[in-house]
């Protein structure tokens, strides 16, 4: 997100979901779209099957979309930058760049080009494990399309150099003029129902609602006036820093609303220690999650079906949620709990209903200014929507980037923080599967979903399985420098040798006990997609 904001001025999807079907070439990189974003996946399928679009899939795993792909680039985990730079090398070499777009709408091209010019494609092939000819073919396919769209997800961001990965996608789009028009752009797919909204609402340590910087005095005073309290202008801690802070004693009290870091965050043993080190932990959730179990106080919230409000989806569309059920226990809407707690702490909040909160937040958030409950019924509105007469924005950066000129950034490939060695010879990458969601607190409690997918698995190549003498369905031990777990092996024929995959939804085999906390220095995203592990057969 930080990467896209640097390049374009906004970190959100540049296009709408429906526009994907109109793209001529789609590059899916670091996204298992059909499993993690199935409905976005349908648009990719529509583009390919119905409109004859070309599809390039860059993924270490033979994900479902590779079936439909014209080109599958099975790159080694963590080498996105090298691959994208290689593609851009080909594009510049072959004169496929959009010179007019570069000249009129971007800055920093020359500096960026130096990095690309210095590249050796053979070396790129070495690093990525993808042949030069495939890189060439993919580059041409992408560059020659009138409308090319990039879809990415955590496979791009969850790296210690994730910002660089994101910047590379932006570079590629700008190089070919594939941004700022319908069906062409850079589209980070959001993993949860309201990630976009939580970001928009300022649940980030450095920005207030609407990405207004806490360090901006004018912004701060606007909020101070509205909220009637003095505010800190010092950017706060990110999740991973909070846990670090807990361990060092810097952070003493933590309030967790509807999150389960005890499964979702890297190096769970460290997370556990951090939570144990806290003086006071409050968890507000609908289930007694792994995290809630560690709390001093647990506050019962209600589910999505028992509340009213708005959520913002991955295409920046603000939509209305409606209350379908009455709460059966004493659980309350999260906003009511916050309101009551604020009251208990002597800060009175007066909101008779969710809509009153929305009115306040839209007034303070320029990109939400024109959005009202009335207007979003029934189809929602895509921000930015600066006034009540504005129809919302289908795609961003038309004619002008949010920040003015698009910015090329020179990005050099850096290897993942942890690389394989003799002791930990496999690259572990983690991710989502179709039938479960995030830490499984919801989907694991759905009878049918849990019946069809009751346990975790370790995907590995037939070659590696043969070498280790492991058969499909055999339970194995996976160890990293940080922890270990037991899980069944799932041997796959066309899986990249040397790489293994674990879904992180299962508390019985929690993938994040193994993962690395190495952070991207800018976005503070941990490197969940690459760490070194070993696999051991269980002796009978």
């Amino acid at each position: 997100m930080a990467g896209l904001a640097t390049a374009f001025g906004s970190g959100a999807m540049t296009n709408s979901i429906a526009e994907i079907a109109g793209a001529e070439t789609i590059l899916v990189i670091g996204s298992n779209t059909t499993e993690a974003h199935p409905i976005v996946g349908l648009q990719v399928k529509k583009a390919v099957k119905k409109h004859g679009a070309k599809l390039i899939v860059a993924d270490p795993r033979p994900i479902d979309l590779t079936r439909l792909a014209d080109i599958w680039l099975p790159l080694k985990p963590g080498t996105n930058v090298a691959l994208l730079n290689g593609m851009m090398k080909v594009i510049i070499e072959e004169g496929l760049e959009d010179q007019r777009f570069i000249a009129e709408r971007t800055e920093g091209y020359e500096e960026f080009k130096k990095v690309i010019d210095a590249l050796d494609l053979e070396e790129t092939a070495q690093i990525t494990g993808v042949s030069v000819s495939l890189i060439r073919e993919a580059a041409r396919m992408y560059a020659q399309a009138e409308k090319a769209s990039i879809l990415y997800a955590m496979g791009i961001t969850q790296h210690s150099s994730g910002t660089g990965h994101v910047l590379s996608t932006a570079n590629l789009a700008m190089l070919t003029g594939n941004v700022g028009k319908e069906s062409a752009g850079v589209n980070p797919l959001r993993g949860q129902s309201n990630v976009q909204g939580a970001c928009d609402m300022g649940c980030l340590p450095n920005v207030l609602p609407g990405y207004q910087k806490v360090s901006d005095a004018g912004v701060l005073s606007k909020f101070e006036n509205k909220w009637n309290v003095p505010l800190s202008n010092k950017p706060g801690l990110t999740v991973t820093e909070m846990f670090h802070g807990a361990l060092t004693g810097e952070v003493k009290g933590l309030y967790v609303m509807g999150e389960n870091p005890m499964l979702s965050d890297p190096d769970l043993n460290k997370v556990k220690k951090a939570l144990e080190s806290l003086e006071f932990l409050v968890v507000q959730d609908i289930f007694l999650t792994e995290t809630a179990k560690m709390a001093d106080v647990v506050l019962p919230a209600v589910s999505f079906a028992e509340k009213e409000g708005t959520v913002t989806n991955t295409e920046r569309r603000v939509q209305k949620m409606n209350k379908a059920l009455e709460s059966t226990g004493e659980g309350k809407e999260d906003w009511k709990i916050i309101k009551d707690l604020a009251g208990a702490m002597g800060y009175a909040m007066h909101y008779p209903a969710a809509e009153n909160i929305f009115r306040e937040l839209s007034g303070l958030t320029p990109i939400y200014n024109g959005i009202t409950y009335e207007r979003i019924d029934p189809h929602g509105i895509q921000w930015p929507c600066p006034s009540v007469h504005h129809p919302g924005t289908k795609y961003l950066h038309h004619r002008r980037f949010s920040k003015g000129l698009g910015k090329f950034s020179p990005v050099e490939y850096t290897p993942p923080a942890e690389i394989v060695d003799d002791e930990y010879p496999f690259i572990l990458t983690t991710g989502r599967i179709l039938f479960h969601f995030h830490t499984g607190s919801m989907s694991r409690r759905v009878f049918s979903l849990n019946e069809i997918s009751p346990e975790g698995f370790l995907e590995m190549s037939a070659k590696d399985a043969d070498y280790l003498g492991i058969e499909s369905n055999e339970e194995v031990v996976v160890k990293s420098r940080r922890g270990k777990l037991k899980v069944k092996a799932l041997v796959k024929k066309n899986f990249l040798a040397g790489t293994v995959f674990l879904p992180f939804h299962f508390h019985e085999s929690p993938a994040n006990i193994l993962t690395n906390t190495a952070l991207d220095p800018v976005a503070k995203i941990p490197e969940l997609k690459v760490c070194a592990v070993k696999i051991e057969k269980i002796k009978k």
Partner: protein
Amino acid sequence: MDGKKIVLSINGKEITCGLNKTILDVVRENGIQIPTLCDCKNLAPFGACRLCLVEIEGIPKLITACSTIAVKGMKIRTESERIDKSRRFIVELLLSDHPFDCMFCEQAGTCPLQDLAYEYGMKNIRFPGEKRATITDDTNPFIERDNSKCILCGRCVRVCDEIQGVGAIGFIDRGFQTRIGTPFDRNLDCEFCGQCVASCPVGALTAKPSKQKGRIWQTRSVKTICPYCGCGCNLTLHVRDNKIISVTSDPDTLNEGYLCSKGRFGCDYVHHPDRLQYPLIKKDGQFIRSSWEQALTLVAMKFKEIKEQHGNDSLAGLSSAKCTNEENYLFQKFIRAVLGTNNVDHCARL
């Protein structure tokens, strides 16, 4: 559309319409009803159910409106004795191979075949005969197929292929014994998106978790947004006795009525017995039930204490990507305005 228009006539009335539209589209745009069973939004015309047959002047045969593009000057008739007779004939044939168990059928009340039978008053079938046996694949927890009710409109097969791109099912066998099934009759092993269930006009495909939970007219429907991934699919929750008994989606939304297995089948967790019912306070390592007042007072006290002892920045909050905008707004407002720190984040990065 490129704005070009053509003029044609329907039932003697002159009508202007856009280019490249099927006769069925044009007819429906003009508020004229034609019964259909195999027609389905977003799917290519199939022409199997033969109910949308219309007369076109100059063509001796009846033509299916769903598969024929309307052209300039066409003279279309949607009602005539021949058409009416044909439609009744089709419905009568379908009913001659139908179990007549509407009283147990999940589709009752939203079934177009039931509606047609009712409309035509077709209680007596002039050519009764063999009925297909029920072949049910009962191995998965989501979808049940009862081939005895299947009218072979092919909507499930087509949505699975054309939209979902999976192709898990197809037409099997021939003649009267033609049915829908999986290759080599293996157990259904697919993405379980349920697009097939949603597209089935009759009761041949049902969502298992919804079986016998309630009739359509006994439920209240509420539109909301899926609680899972960031696609933001629109859901319609069907509620009876404060329970979600089934989930559908309106075709007129960003997700065009399509859902994934989580959206369509994954709302049960709301009713799971593990749901937290009251506030808990941990004492000596054990959670004890508490009142809201007790719990909130304790939290407020502890937060104040830490704030006073260690400073504002010793407190932090993790908000939720699963909560609403209002709640996220309020959460960061609480952290910033009440706790006085910018230590607020959520799992956007995870």
